[in-house]
């Protein structure tokens, strides 16, 4: 858009005045009248310039405020997305940990317990007296409880480890996506 179009009237007035100045036949009175008209137009143009500058600055403020509000909303949105991602990953980590707990429990019941049983039986040897059997049962009970307790204690750190691993992967994926978006924006 050219300024010539926007200020067409004003440019017309200026051209008219220039023509009048170079006109050798124009009377002093007519020239004075032309000059008065030019002054009126100049005053009007000055008023317009003042208004447009003022209004433009005010609307720029409005635009800045809108941009600021938008930036704040973006930060809020990013925080919400981060929290949602964290919650989703936390849930995933809990599910994986639960699955691992079930597998470990089955390993404990099917593999570990018979192994402990065999070891305790070997240690006690042929002591099949009532005291010996009681001792055997007691050791077996405490050994399996201890084994399961160790597993239970390890579950929480395991969940945290899985969660941090999944979070790291999610951040890497987000960074990768951001980079590819930036590259495609720069290319276009």
């Amino acid at each position: 858009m050219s300024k010539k179009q926007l200020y067409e009237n004003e440019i017309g007035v200026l051209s008219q005045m220039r023509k009048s100045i170079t006109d050798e036949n124009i009377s002093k009175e007519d020239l004075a009248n032309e000059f008065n008209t030019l002054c009126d137009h100049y005053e009007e143009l000055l008023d317009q310039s003042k208004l447009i500058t003022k209004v433009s600055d005010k609307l720029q403020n409005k635009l800045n405020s809108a941009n600021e509000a938008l930036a704040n909303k973006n930060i809020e949105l990013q925080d919400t997305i981060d929290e949602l991602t964290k919650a989703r990953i936390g849930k995933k980590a809990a599910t994986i940990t639960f699955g691992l707990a079930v597998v470990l429990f089955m390993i404990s019941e099917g593999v570990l317990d018979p192994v402990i049983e065999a070891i305790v039986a070997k240690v006690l040897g042929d002591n099949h007296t009532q005291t010996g059997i009681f001792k055997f049962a007691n050791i077996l009970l405490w050994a399996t409880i201890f084994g399961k307790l160790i597993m239970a204690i390890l579950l929480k750190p395991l969940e945290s480890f899985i969660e941090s691993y999944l979070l790291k992967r999610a951040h890497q994926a987000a960074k990768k996506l951001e980079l590819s978006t930036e590259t495609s924006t720069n290319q276009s």
Partner: protein
Amino acid sequence: METLELQAKNNTPYINFDASTGIMVMKGRSTPENSVEYYEPITNWVLNYIQSPAENTIIKVQFEYFNTSSSKCILDVLKKFAEIHKAGKSAKVEWYFEEDDEDMKEAGEDYGDIVKMPFEVIEIPE
């Protein structure tokens, strides 16, 4: 005289100039790529209208935002409407702004100072 109606778009305002009622509405956002081209038919319509205006002309203006070149075009349109008042007929501008929109309120007051016709700045409650 036919009513001038232009639907609002992303960067142009809604225009409804009704010669039979004398109610003129300019509403929305004005950031056209070429303001002069956009406002040319509007200005031409106003130039025709002021030849034989309605008994009462009310120009209702409600902008959310307008760019610098639009501000000059809006001023030109309002100045042409002011000719009606100058000719001794009833004409006034109602400049509406949303509550808390101080910038648009002040813009209206600035226009009111320069346009030589009754000019009212009205707040729209939320």
